[in-house]
């Protein structure tokens, strides 16, 4: 029994993921502190303000970061925030389009008005250079992103009339799978003279800029120090963070969907470990008996 056929383990893991996906149990989700901070910070932004979302990831980390992008866009539009989307990763612009598609479907299903391109949101696409792009945006959007992803000049986009530089933004979000991503935004934006973040507890954030992020589960712990030092005001870590955020928004999404399989799969693995140890001790006792 100690050499249980691996295929049984594989089958059980697969079922632990598939069954809760098809038949959700809805285990309660208790949002963690960094996610609450993330949500509360956005709530501080007044209606009609401008925010920037930087899509710094590619398809390989979609399961974790895409739900964050969708919830974030949904949150922004439901607060009537105007969204500028950019990408520091080549495939980030596609990620943004995909997320918008899903958000539109969600809003349509809820019977809410759809955000209008050019007025409520724009997608400026990818620019290489990482930190250099961040520096450039501090002073001039047009110099870095003369055209949007459709090839329209940004002077023809009404939204961009109001967003000339980072000083016109109330918040920057980086959805980050590595470098360039959150570390670049935290370090370079400060150096380039972006508006300072509000102090914890401050509720009037006019003239200030929030820096918020979403990261993969593996990389999230290295960003916690940024939260402690108020260099970032909130963080979504991994699928768990995305699910917490969806819970706060009361928006059922793929991350919350993923939490049941996640919990069950973790439990299944722990059960396997316990089983392995039970068999191990039983066998050891048997051997000891034989020996005596």
């Amino acid at each position, binding site marked *: 029994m100690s050499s249980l056929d691996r295929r049984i383990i594989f089958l059980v893991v697969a079922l632990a993921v598939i069954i809760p996906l098809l038949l959700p149990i809805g285990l309660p989700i208790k949002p963690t502190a960094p996610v609450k901070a993330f949500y509360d910070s956005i709530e501080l932004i007044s209606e009609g303000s401008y925010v920037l979302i930087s899509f710094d990831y590619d398809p390989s980390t979609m399961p974790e970061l895409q739900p964050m992008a969708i919830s974030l866009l949904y949150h922004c539009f439901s607060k009537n925030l105007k969204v500028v989307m950019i990408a520091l990763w080549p495939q980030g612009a596609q990620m943004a389009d995909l997320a918008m598609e899903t958000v539109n479907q969600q809003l349509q299903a809820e019977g809410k008005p759809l955000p209008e391109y050019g007025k409520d949101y724009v997608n400026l696409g990818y620019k290489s250079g990482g930190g250099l792009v961040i520096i450039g945006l501090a002073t001039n959007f047009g110099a870095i992103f003369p055209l949007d992803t459709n090839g329209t000049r940004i002077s023809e986009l009404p939204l961009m009339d109001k967003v000339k530089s980072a000083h016109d933004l109330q918040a920057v979000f980086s959805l980050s799978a590595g470098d360039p991503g959150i570390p670049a935004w935290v370090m370079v934006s400060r150096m380039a003279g972006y*508006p300072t973040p509000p102090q914890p507890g401050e509720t009037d954030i006019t003239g200030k800029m929030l820096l918020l992020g979403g990261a993969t589960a593996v990389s999230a712990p290295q960003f916690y120090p940024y939260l402690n030092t108020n260099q970032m005001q909130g963080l979504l870590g991994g699928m768990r963070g995305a699910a917490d955020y969806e819970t706060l928004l009361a928006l059922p999404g793929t991350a919350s969907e993923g939490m049941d399989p996640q919990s069950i799969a973790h439990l299944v693995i722990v059960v396997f470990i316990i089983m392995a140890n039970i068999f191990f001790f039983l066998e050891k006792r048997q051997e000891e008996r034989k020996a005596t």
Partner: protein
Amino acid sequence: MPKRKGGIPTLTSKAPTAGLLSVMVALFVFSLVPTVTWGRPSPGPPTNLQGEDFPLDDGGSIQLTWALSPDDREGGLVEKYILLRSTKEEGPYTELPYSIPLGSDSYVDSGEVDENGVTIVEEPRNSIKYYYKIIALGKGGVRSEECLIDGPAVATRQWFNPGRVNMLVASIVLSLFILFFIWQASLGKELYIRPLAGLEAVQEAIGRATEMGKPVLFIPGIMDMDDIQTIAGVTILGRVARMVAEYDADILVPCSRSLVMTIASEVVREAYLDAGRPDAFKPDNIRYLTDDQFGYVAGVDGIMLRERPAANFYLGTFYAESLILAETGSSVGAIQIAGTAMPSQLPFFVAACDYTLIGEELFAASAYLSKEPKQLGSLVGQDWGKLIFLLFIIIGSIIAIFNQLNPDLISIKSWFEIQ
């Protein structure tokens, strides 16, 4: 951090209270300016232009700083700044076509090259005195008065980065320790090296493969030859291949980098030659698959399933594929010996392989297998390095207690700060 070429404008955040003051100053300045082009007022000039060598480079760049024009604010008159440069104080001055946006109070003049490599602005030459002027450009091309630099600026080449003294000392001390013990060993001094379980098992694993008539599979990581772990892996491959040749077994080396494939095949061929069995070497057993991480894993998994190796070696740099390889290897019943210095992947090798060389043990392995005194000597040198580091950690932590009370006290921690 991005590269400096082309210069990075920096910005200052302006305190809101300064707003009123600057409006008043601006109004005052307007009243003084007699020439008004097309009825547009010209902005007040930037002031206090200073220049100095940009530090820590090979020369060719000058750092300029200035105080913003009083009209440099939101809704103000300034659109951007323009720099002019000359080698003589009296001129003539050339306008430098940099775009320096409003709000910048510094710029690094290091020349500019366009996308096709054509020089637009020549970089300042080393050891030559340069004079600069700066003007603020207003709407409609109106220019402010010029502001001349305080004194000439010279770009110089730095031969030493003083922030890296600690690294220099560490490099020299460690190198001396290692070389000293290599020298000692070459004099014939007897050296003790503790056994490494993973390496004791190498022979056993190859012997088992020979008995079973199955091949040995060796994976030198997924990175290229510039990675030192790969070099360590390939060096160990040489020793393992020699044993394989002596035992008359087969060794398979699928590679994910062409260069590694090329060098591995050379190393294995030599090993067979050394063992006196050059004709038993099968060049086709050392093969290239693909540079792609998971494409490579798919290929290696296929090889494992079909060739069913009796011994698997994973020695080099590994990422997420570590566990995929090790679990597939375990499912075909191979003895598995792994070694890597990647802290993130060690847990998976420890869990799924029979023996794992942890971190430094990987680098010790080639010395250990070769049994050459020179190589073993370097291990003793490494141990002395460890001892020194340990002492610094302990003494540094004790002194750090007092650093909390008296910040002026010597701080060992600061010796290890990296710049």
